[in-house]
């Protein structure tokens, strides 16, 4: 329960929403789907700014990218007929792993990214796809990589008057494959390890590689050393296993009652190797 809540705003434009968030005399916070805030006990929140009337629920294909409005329910991503190809596959696989049908109809793409938790499914997928976000502060806008948004935490990165309004995902050609894995005890439980991969082949060798992890790490992150290890080399099982081993090195993995650090380290390598194999299998399909 938000005990100090006295105001509920329903702006109809982005400019109006940003002005409300900029207010100095009130602590207004943006409200997307509400699944986090409805349970929150943050007694500093005085006002909610409902973003549902800003017309930010859409999925568009613009030729070289997919544009997803920040208020698009993740169920719409999961069921989208617009999303296709390697990017579409990864986005749909990730969105379909979020919670349940009932939750996916509430949770939004922007909310899942900005209120990122270790178990959030879209952020690692967006990292693997080199996605960018459009951020508005009233009329001014800027576009930044999702990776920059996730470097610290999105809340720290964003100015209080700024809103993530769109997610831009590049379209990749038939030489690219992607794979998404959520490893958990039950389909609805929190992820123990999440792996999102993208491989782009260049002739007989690996031209681009992305390995993004979440679930077992405090925030979603990429494994640059493991990605670098793959570049310019012909695909072999041994190579993928080496990269997977590198992906598990120098990581401060979560250890809790669900799974120990040691267990997660072992499983992580297997999941990354399989995810790379799966991505390569998807090339050309």
């Amino acid at each position, binding site marked *: 329960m*938000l005990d100090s809540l006295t105001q509920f705003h329903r702006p109809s434009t982005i400019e109006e929403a940003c002005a409300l968030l900029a207010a100095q005399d009130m602590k207004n916070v943006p409200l997307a789907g*509400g*699944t986090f*805030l*409805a349970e929150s006990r943050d007694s500093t929140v005085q006002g909610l700014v409902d973003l549902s009337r800003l017309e930010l629920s859409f999925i568009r294909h613009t030729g070289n990218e997919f544009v997803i409005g920040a208020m698009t329910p993740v169920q719409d991503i999961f069921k989208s007929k617009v999303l296709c190809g390697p990017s579409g596959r990864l986005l749909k696989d990730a969105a379909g792993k979020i*919670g349940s049908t*009932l939750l996916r109809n509430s949770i939004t793409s922007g909310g899942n990214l900005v209120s990122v938790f270790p178990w959030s499914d879209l952020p690692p997928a967006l990292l693997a796809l080199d996605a960018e976000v459009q951020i508005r502060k009233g009329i001014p806008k800027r576009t930044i990589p999702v990776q920059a948004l996730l470097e610290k935490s999105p809340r720290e990165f964003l100015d209080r008057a700024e809103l993530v309004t769109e997610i831009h995902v590049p379209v990749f050609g038939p030489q690219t494959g992607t794979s998404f894995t959520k490893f958990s005890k039950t389909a*609805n439980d929190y992820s123990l390890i999440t792996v999102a991969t993208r491989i782009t082949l260049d002739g007989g060798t690996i031209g681009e590689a992305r390995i993004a992890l979440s679930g077992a790490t405090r925030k979603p992150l990429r494994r640059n050393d493991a990605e670098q290890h793959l570049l310019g080399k012909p695909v072999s099982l041994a190579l993928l296993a080496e990269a997977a081993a590198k992906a598990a090195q120098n990581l401060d993995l979560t250890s809790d009652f669900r799974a120990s650090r040691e267990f997660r380290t072992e499983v992580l390598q297997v999941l990354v190797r399989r995810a790379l194999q799966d991505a390569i299998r998807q090339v050309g399909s």
Partner: protein
Amino acid sequence: MKLNLTINGNPKTFEISPNSILLDVLRRAGLKGVKKGCGEGSCGACAVLIDGRPRNSCLVFAAQCEGAKVISVEGMGNPANPHPLQDAFIRHGATQCGYCNPGSLIAAKALLERTPSPTWDEVKEALDGNLCRCTGYVKRIEAVLDAASFGKNNK
């Protein structure tokens, strides 16, 4: 603050607080078919349709629904005139304690409105947010598939 909703086809106005949760507002209005199970989005007993989408009403601020059309299990049918899904749940024994039924029925209704002839897997997926701890999961899938074919034969 005021909240205007169309509940099960009837326009209603409520006096709510900005932090009121939709589930509590509906139950206070007498819609006791909307169940509070876990209160944190895990069990689905509180599911209602909000502008056609099945959502957990325990995780929705009532104020988010200004102007929305809300359908609860009370809007589906009654003992004298049950909805084909309710009828199928009874015939298939897809109910024991019954606590999960209102949410499961709402999720099933949302599925059949979008997908009138679902597959087994589509039903399973549509009900993935509705926990049932006594009847189990097979009978209600059979019931939904039966209701779907009943709907087809009566068109």
